[in-house]
C-alpha cells in the first residue's frame, strides 16, 4: 500500500527528512520512532499528501478520500461544537449516513454529553478525542497518526488502544510515536529515524 525509496524532503536549505526507505503492505501496522526533529512529522505529511518529496519515490495507494490523518494539531474549529465540526468534515468527505456515524463516534469516544459545546471549552484530552473522531469519520483505509497518545487523557488512551486493536489488520496503519512499546504487540514493521 505504501512504498517509498530514498524519500527525502528539503525546505530550501533545511533537510527535514533524510533518505528513507519504507514499505507497508495493506493491513500492515507500521510504527515510526525517532527523536524530535528526526523528520517523523515530515514523513507523515508526505504520506498523506500535504507535501511532496524533494527526492526519491513515494507511492501511496490511496487517494484523499481514503486517508485519515491525525496531526500534532487537532485540526478542528475552536468556535464550533463537536457536532458542527464533524458535520462539516462529514460533508466534505461525503460520509454516508453522516448523522448516525457522528453520533456513533461521539458516543464511542465519550464526547456525547459535550457534543453541542464549543471546542474552545474542551480540555486538551477532549479536543484530541474529537480529532480522533474526525480522523475516523470517513472510515479511511489508511490511518496516519502523529503521536496520538501525546495529548490524550487516561480515558482517551484506553479508547484509542481499543480502537487500534479493532482496526489493526483490517486497515493500514502508520503511527509515529515516542512510546513504541505500547504498540509493539500490534505492529508488523517498525522504522527508526535518526
Amino acid at each position, binding site marked *: 500500500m505504501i512504498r517509498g525509496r530514498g524519500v527525502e524532503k528539503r*525546505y*530550501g*536549505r533545511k533537510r527535514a527528512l533524510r533518505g528513507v526507505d519504507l514499505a507497508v503492505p495493506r493491513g500492515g501496522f507500521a510504527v515510526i520512532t525517532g527523536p524530535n526533529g528526526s523528520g517523523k512529522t515530515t514523513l507523515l505529511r508526505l504520506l498523506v499528501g500535504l*507535501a511532496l518529496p524533494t527526492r526519491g519515490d513515494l507511492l501511496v495507494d490511496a487517494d484523499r478520500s481514503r486517508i485519515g490523518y491525525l496531526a500534532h494539531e487537532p485540526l478542528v474549529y475552536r468556535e464550533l461544537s463537536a457536532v458542527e465540526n464533524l458535520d462539516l468534515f462529514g460533508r466534505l468527505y461525503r460520509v454516508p449516513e453522516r448523522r448516525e456515524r457522528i453520533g456513533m463516534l461521539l458516543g464511542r469516544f465519550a464526547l456525547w454529553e459535550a457534543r453541542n459545546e464549543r471546542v474552545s471549552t474542551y480540555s486538551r484530552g477532549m479536543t484530541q478525542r474529537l480529532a480522533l473522531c474526525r480522523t475516523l469519520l470517513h472510515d479511511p483505509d489508511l490511518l496516519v497518526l502523529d503521536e496520538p497518545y501525546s495529548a490524550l487523557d487516561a480515558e482517551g488512551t484506553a479508547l484509542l488502544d481499543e480502537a487500534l486493536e479493532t482496526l489493526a489488520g483490517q486497515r493500514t496503519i502508520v503511527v509515529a510515536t515516542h512510546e513504541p512499546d505500547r504498540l509493539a504487540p500490534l505492529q508488523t514493521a517498525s522504522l527508526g529515524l535518526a
Partner: protein
Amino acid sequence: MGLALVLALIVAPEDADQGISQRIFYIHVPIALTAYFCFGLGAVKALLLLWRGDERYDLESYVAIHQGTIFGALTLITGAIWAKASWGVWWTWSSNQLVLFLVLFLFYCAYFMLRFSLEDGPRRARSSAVYALFGVALIPVSFLAIRLAEDFIHPTVFTRDGPQMSGSMFATFVVSWGAVTLLAYVLYRVELAGKRLDADLRELREALQ
C-alpha cells in the same frame, strides 16, 4: 560584449540631433519595453513552475522579475528626467506610461516582500509564481484603468509629444533597443548563474556534512 554594449549606448544618443529630451527617449522607451519583457518572462517561468512542478523555474522566474523591477525603477528615473527636460517638472500624472509603471513598480516590490516573508521551499515558489501571474494580468487592466481615470483625475495640462520618428531616428531607436535588451539578457544570465552557483555550493556543503 560589455564593450559593445557601452559603445552602442553612447553612439545611440549621439546620433540624435534633437534636444536632451529626445535623447533620453532613446533610452527610456527601450528600458520600459525591456522591463515589460522581463515581467512577461517571469510570468512564463512562473507558469512553467506551476504546470511542470520543476523547482528550477522558481529561480529563473525570480531573477527575471528582479531584472524587470530594476529596469522598472530605471524607467521611472529616466521618465522623471525626461519629464524634467520636456516640461520642467519631475513628475506628471498625465503620462499614462509613467503612472502604469509606478503601479507595477509597487506591485513587484510587494513581490519581493512576499518572498522575503516566506520560508524557502515549495510554498514560497508557488506563491511567488501565482503572484507573478497576477502581475501580468494587472498590466493591461491597470492600463485600462488609468485611461479611464483620465476622465476624472487631474486635467491634462501637458500635451504628450509622441515623437514622430524619421528613418535615422528609427534606426537609432532600434540600435538602442537592441543594446538595452542585450544588456538585460546579460544581466539575467549573470544573476541566474550566480544564484545557481550559490545553491549548488550549498547543496555540496550539505552533502558533505
